């Protein structure tokens, strides 16, 4: 939710209107050749696979997320897992959760579904809202522009975490929590995307080919879709890749504060939150979700950087 403006100014100029769009295959190849981006993609693919295959993986391990194993924790010391490394064993690959003895691997892979699902869902929504508002503001008249821009400023100025806590509290319990989380995060975090899209639109609308399309009588929607949108792809994709980790942190933050997904549903943020009191007696309980979160965030950041380098027309280093 806390979107930094430096990120928004990252990708500088739009594509050169005179040069034809680069073929998709070429972009893809360049992206794969970028080592950082390729690493990011591999990690992300793995994480997504883990999330999708969570039921299979836990079945393979023979555990589930909710069954408690009191025999695997030392009740007298508050529930510290028995055995080394938080109770790592052939049956419990990453050990067990303190107090309950629930399987940590199962909770981690199911937690990936929540963490990735919420972050990707929220990002998609943010891009959808942000691009629509941005293009409308950029192409619309002065009144439309200033109204939409003020609205954007308003969402950027919101104390978003406080607002999210408030929103989460009033939504009835019957609505699925991950969906609520994604929508709340998206509603509070589309402002920067809209600004970016508006800026790009403003610079594109003065180009000759846009003016030509307008003069030839193309309706505004068509102008937006056919002439403006392709020019927005680069900065938006780059920015979206940066939004995903931001949204993951938001989800983790809200779950950490106790307004995210509800127990016994696992999420990484909620695991981290529970882990804070355990970092000394059972450091694995913090390292496992923390490590997963760190790895995923790193992957998305690497990918975003790679995308920017690849799509940036000024960058000749990779193309050469």
């Amino acid at each position, binding site marked *: 939710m806390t979107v930094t403006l430096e990120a928004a100014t990252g990708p500088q100029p739009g594509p050169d209107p005179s040069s034809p769009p680069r073929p998709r295959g070429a972009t893809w190849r360049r992206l794969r050749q970028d080592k950082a981006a390729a690493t990011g993609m591999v990690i992300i693919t793995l994480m997504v696979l883990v999330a999708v295959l969570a039921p299979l993986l836990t079945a393979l391990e023979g555990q589930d997320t909710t069954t*408690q194993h*009191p025999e695997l924790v*030392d009740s007298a010391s*508050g529930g510290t897992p028995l055995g080394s490394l938080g109770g790592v064993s052939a049956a419990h690959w990453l050990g067990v959760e*303190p*107090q309950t003895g629930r399987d940590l691997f199962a909770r981690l892979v199911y937690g990936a579904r929540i963490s990735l699902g919420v972050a990707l869902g929220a990002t998609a929504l943010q891009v959808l809202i942000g691009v629509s508002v941005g293009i409308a503001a950029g192409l619309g008249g002065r009144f439309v522009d200033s109204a939409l821009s003020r609205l954007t400023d308003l969402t950027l100025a919101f104390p978003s975490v406080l607002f999210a806590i408030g929103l989460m509290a009033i939504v009835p319990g019957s609505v699925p929590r991950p969906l609520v989380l994604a929508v709340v995060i998206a509603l509070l975090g589309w402002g920067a995307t809209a600004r970016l899209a508006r800026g790009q639109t403003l610079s594109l609308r003065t180009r000759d080919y846009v003016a030509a399309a307008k003069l030839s009588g193309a309706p505004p929607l068509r102008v937006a879709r056919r002439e403006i949108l392709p020019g927005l792809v680069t900065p938006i994709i780059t920015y979206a890749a940066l939004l995903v980790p931001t949204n993951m942190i938001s989800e983790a933050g809200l779950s950490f504060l*106790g307004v995210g997904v*509800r127990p016994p549903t696992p999420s990484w943020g909620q695991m981290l939150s529970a882990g804070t*009191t355990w970092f000394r007696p059972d450091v694995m309980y913090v390292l496992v979700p923390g490590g997963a979160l760190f790895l995923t965030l790193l992957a998305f950041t690497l990918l975003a950087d790679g995308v920017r380098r690849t799509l940036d027309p000024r960058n000749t280093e990779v193309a050469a």
Partner: protein
Amino acid sequence: MRRISVVSAALALVLAGTAACSSSSGHSSSGGSGTAAAFDPKTCQGGTLEVLNQDSISKLDPARIYTSGGGNIPSLLFRTLTTRNREPGQDGTKPAPDLATDLGTPSDNAQTWTYHLKDGIFFEDGTPITSADIKYGIERSFAPELPGGAPYLRDWLVNAANYQGPYKDPDGIAAIETPDPKTIIFHLRKPEGDFPLLATATQFAPVPKAKDTGVDYDKHPISSGPYMVASYEKNKTLDLVRNPHWSAATDPLRYACPDKIDVTSGLDPAVINQRIATGTGQDANAVTTDTTIGPDQLAQLNSNPALAKRVAHGEFPATTYIAFDTKVKPFDDIRVREAISYAINRTTAVNAAGGTAVAGASTTFLPPQKALGYQPYDYFPAGATGNPAKAKELLAQAGYPNGLTVTLAHQSDDANNFGPKVATAVQDALKAAGITVNLNPIDDNRYTDVTGKPSTEPGMSLQYWGADWPSGAPFLIPIFDGREIISSGGNFNLAQLNDPSVNAEIDAINAITDPAQAQARWGALDAKLGQQALTVPLFYEKDVSLFGKNVKNAVPDGWRGQYDLARVSVK
């Protein structure tokens, strides 16, 4: 009782965390860290005691705070007619005279209680304390402007139920007589053998009418105890200094060792435990009255004998349990309630509360304290981890051969130990018996409002009950007396049980003034009620808390399970 959230706890109640128990291995004597025997209250004076607490001090007015035995911090400021005797273990469950010369003289079948005040007792400004001040203090607690105190007096005193306090009704309560400045007489509408135990509450503290500023009295209540308020920033800090007009000769129970007591509230429990355990600088003089030891320190105890010596093990009578509304389906069927009783896994429930160091599995509603009349029973033996086979059998008999789906209400936060952690343990245990449990988290601050109103009461909810004083009466009456069902809200008889034979037995026991006799009868009543599976007791609480390196005589008293701030020393 409980109402933890209502309580302004730092001050008042012993918090959820505060309990602890007789069976807590051989530790109970380690509380004083070996200095208890050599401790001399005459030479303990000096130093500043630091109190590090989680719960904010939101109320200081003696009319408004809800305490068991007069509280820990409030008892430093307010002397009451009687007070807890501050002894460790089971001996500490008895009251002792405080402002009064004795525990009171009952007459008229324990319906009239007469007290005489000691000589040489003064407020912090040097004004002598009279019986009229005590009467006025009680009358203030009836004022709707000053809510929050225990409800008993309203029920017990003759014709006091509708009294609106001295501001609206200056004539006062006729049922309290003060024939002379040293004598106070209470007229009750029914026999109450536990009156001397109730008289430990802060509502029995004297309040000088001339100094009463109504709602603002809270900012600087006039002290009758060994300390008085030097500065008080609501919800943050409370600094106490010695009251020059308090005399140790009239108050042998409070040692009043430190010269100053500084309370800081609103801290994180992990921070409190860490600060006391490390004991840097002023923290060497630190104690807490509302924070139980965390897993971080528990894990260190075996390898760190110096820290293990700084752990107090006390006992506060309290039970965490599942309550059923027996008026709604499917809990109107005793076989369903029995099935859940059989299926419960008390090992995971205890672990959810923090493990065997701070909670003990319980099959009885009364916690295992002799003073409450504890009698062991286990009518639906679930063993350590549950008996799902027997539960399934009972469910089939009740017409649910394919299992059952129920909803369990719980607090949304784990602070009071009946939040998501315990709820998910129950959920997992019942799954094995084919019972699907949906969780219904309710915000802590609204919890008793929702569960305490029969129209909004959930069919099945997690609950906690602690003793207002160490007796069976305040434990069983609010929960099982049919005349205590309050339809407008504030109800704790969640089973909605109204059994004339139970009500009659409660009246009969209330008339008994001999505690030993009463205890046996309360225990028998609890065992009788247990057969109906109106609740599923989960665990009783053990109170384990740390104290600083320089702190001496931190011996938990048997009433509250905490070390008594009026007796610890930092010299």
